C-alpha cells in the first residue's frame, strides 16, 4: 500500500509539473505572475473536448492543436495586451492577468455553460499492474513523460537556439538586448506563447483524466503557483521538483491525516519552503 501511495504521489506530481511548467517559464523570464494560467489550461482542455466531440479526434492528435492554438493565443495576448503595461509595476501586470482570467472564464461560461463535460475515450482509465501490489494508470504516466519532453524542449530552446539567447538576454538586461538588435516585444510574445502553449498541453491531458468545466481554472492556477514557488524559478527542473515534492507529500499526507487536508498540506509546504528556502528547493535566481 505504501508503494501504491508513492506511485500515486509521483504520478500526481508529474501532472502538477505539467500544469506549472508554462507558468514557471513566463514568471522566470518576464517576471509576470500569470494568474490566468489555469484559464489557459481550461481552454486547452476545451479545445480537446470540442475536437473530440465534433470531429471525434483522438486527444493525442488534438494535443498538437491545443498547443498550437494556445501558443497563438498566448502570443496575441502578450503582443496586444500585456505588452502595453509591461513597463509598469508588477502589480499592474498582475491586475491585467487577473482581468484576462475573469474575461476568459466568463466568456467560456456564457458560450459553453457551466455543464461538466468529459472526454470519453476507451483508454481514459487504462492501467497496468506491477505484481500484485501496484496499479499504474497509463495516462498519468504519459503526462509524466510529456512534462519531461516539454521541459527538455524548453531547455533546448532557451540554451541552444538564437531565440533562447534573445529570451535570456531580454530577461537579464533589457537595454543591452535592445542595443544588439533583439526585438523585445516579439521575444516576449513568443515566450508567453510558449508558456501558454504548455498550459494547452496540460489541458489536453487533464481533459482525458478529469471532467472539465469553464470554472476549473482557478484551482489549477493556485496549484501551479504553489508548484512554481516550491520548485524555484529560473530552471526547467524547478517545476518537476516542485510538482513531485507536492504530489508525494499530498499523497502521504492525505493518507495519514485524511483527504480533507489536501490543500492544507500543499500550503503548509509552501509556507515551509518560503521560510527555509525562500528561493525554492532548487534556489534559482530571483
Amino acid at each position: 500500500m505504501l508503494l501504491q501511495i508513492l506511485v500515486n504521489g509521483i504520478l500526481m506530481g508529474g501532472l502538477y509539473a505539467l500544469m506549472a511548467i508554462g507558468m514557471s517559464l513566463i514568471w522566470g523570464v518576464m517576471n509576470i505572475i500569470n494568474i490566468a494560467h489555469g484559464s489557459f489550461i481550461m481552454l486547452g482542455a476545451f479545445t480537446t473536448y470540442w475536437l473530440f466531440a465534433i470531429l471525434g479526434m483522438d486527444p493525442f492528435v488534438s494535443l498538437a492543436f491545443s498547443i498550437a492554438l494556445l501558443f497563438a493565443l498566448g502570443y496575441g495576448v502578450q503582443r496586444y495586451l500585456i505588452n502595453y503595461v509591461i513597463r509598469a509595476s508588477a502589480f499592474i501586470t498582475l491586475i491585467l492577468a487577473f482581468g484576462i482570467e475573469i474575461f476568459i472564464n466568463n466568456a467560456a461560461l456564457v458560450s459553453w455553460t457551466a455543464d461538466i463535460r468529459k472526454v470519453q475515450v476507451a483508454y481514459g482509465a487504462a492501467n497496468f499492474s506491477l505484481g500484485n501490489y501496484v496499479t499504474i494508470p497509463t495516462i498519468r504516466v504519459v503526462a509524466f513523460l510529456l512534462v519531461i519532453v516539454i521541459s527538455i524542449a524548453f531547455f533546448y530552446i532557451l540554451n541552444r537556439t538564437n531565440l533562447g539567447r534573445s529570451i535570456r538576454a531580454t530577461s537579464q538586461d533589457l537595454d543591452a538586448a535592445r542595443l544588439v538588435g533583439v526585438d523585445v516585444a516579439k521575444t516576449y510574445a513568443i515566450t508567453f506563447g510558449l508558456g501558454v502553449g504548455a498550459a494547452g498541453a496540460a489541458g489536453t491531458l487533464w481533459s482525458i483524466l478529469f471532467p472539465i468545466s469553464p470554472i476549473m481554472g482557478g484551482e489549477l492556477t493556485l496549484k501551479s503557483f504553489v508548484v512554481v514557488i516550491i520548485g524555484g524559478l529560473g530552471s526547467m527542473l524547478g517545476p518537476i521538483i516542485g510538482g513531485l515534492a507536492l504530489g508525494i507529500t499530498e499523497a502521504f499526507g492525505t493518507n495519514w491525516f485524511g483527504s480533507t487536508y489536501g490543500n492544507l498540506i500543499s500550503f503548509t509546504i509552501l509556507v515551509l519552503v518560503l521560510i527555509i528556502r525562500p528561493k525554492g528547493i532548487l534556489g534559482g535566481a530571483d
Partner: protein
Amino acid sequence: MIIMKRLLKNFFYGFLTIGLVLSFGHFAQAASKSVIKLGCAISFTGGESRTGKLYRDSYDMAVEQINKNGGVKVGNQTYQLKIVYYDDESDPTKSSKFVEKLIAEDKVNFLLGPYSSGITIPDSLVAQRYKVPMIEGGGASGKIFSRGNKYIFGTLPPAGQYFKSTLEMLKTFNPVPKTIAILYSDDKFDISVAEGTEKLAKEMGFDVALYEKYAERATDFSSILTKIKALNTDVVLVAGHTEESLNFTQQAKELNVNPKLISMTVGPSEADFRKSLGKDAEYIFGVASWSTQMNFKGYLFKDTQEFVKEFKAKYNYDPDYHNASGIADVAVFKDAIERAGSLNKEKVRAAIASTKLDTIYGTVEFSENGQIKGTSVALQILGGEIYQVYPNGAKKPVYPFPSWKTRK
C-alpha cells in the same frame, strides 16, 4: 483610480435610473394584471449552477403550467404567478443578501429556495427574520430544519435517511455484504448524509470499515481509493457532487479498485453522468427521492409519466428528482394560497404546514420541522439507463459488480 471611481459612480446612477424606470413599469403592470410574485435567489453561475438550472427549469415550467391553466384563485380573484430571480453565484452570503433584497425591494409575496443545503441555511434565516414563507426543493440537511424555523419548508427527504433503502437492499443480497466504506464531501448536506448513514449502518449490524471526509470539489481520489483497496470493503457509499462522483468512478477504474457495490447520492440519476462515463457508469447505484419510473397522480400535471414526457419535450433532457422536487415546491404554493384564500403571509404559512397534496413527486406532507415526510429509493444504472431497483424496482439489482477487468 479616480477615473475608475467616477466611472463606477456614473454606472451606479445609470443603473439606478434604469432600475427606477423599470420598477415603475413593474408596478403599473402589477396593478393592471394581478400578479403573485415569488422571489428566488439561485445559482446561475458558479459551482452549483448546473443543479441550480434544474430547479430554475422546473420552477419556470410549473409557473407556466399554472398561468396557462387559469392561474391561482384567491377568493374571487385570479392571479398570475411570476418569479423574480437573482443569480447568487453559488455564494451563500450573496444568496442571503439577494433574499433580503427580494423581500425589502422587490416586495415578493413568497420565496422559492436556492440549491444546496449550505446556501439554503442562510437564506432560510432571512425568510424567518422577515416572516416570509419559503418552500425549497434543494436543501435536505437536518441543519436547515433543526432551528425551530417556522417559515422554511423543504421537499427533499432528510439527508440522514438517503441511504436507508440502499442499506435495506444490502440485507436482501446473498451473501449479505459485511464491510462498508462511507465517503463524504465536506459540505453540510453530505455531512448530514454520512452521519445518518453511519448510524443506520451500525444499527443494522454492518461494519463501517472506513468513514472518511474529503475536500469539496476534490479531483484526486487516489489516496482514498488506495485505502479502500487495502481494506477490501464490500460496499462503498459516496455522498458528494456530480463532478466528484465522475472522478471517483474513473479513478476507481484507473487504479483497478473493485468493491462489490458502489452507490452515490448525486450523479447516477443525472443523464450527464451516464453520458460522461459511458460504459464505466454501468452497475453504479444511486439514491433518489424520486425517479422517472414512478407514477403518481399529479396536481399541475396529469401524472408523473405525463410530466416526464412534457418536460423532455420542453427542455430536451430527462428530469431527475431535483426537477420533480422543484415542481412540487410551486405546486404546494398554489395549493396553499388557494386554501388560505388570502395572500397574507401568516395564513399561507399555516396552510403550507397543513399541506397534504398529491403531486407528480409523490404525496407532499410536511413534518413538524418543515421537512417533507418520505424516504428515498435505490437506483442502478443498467444498460445505460437508470432503473429503480429497490424497493419494488422495475429491474432486479445486479450484485456484486463485475470487476473492471472482466467487463467488456
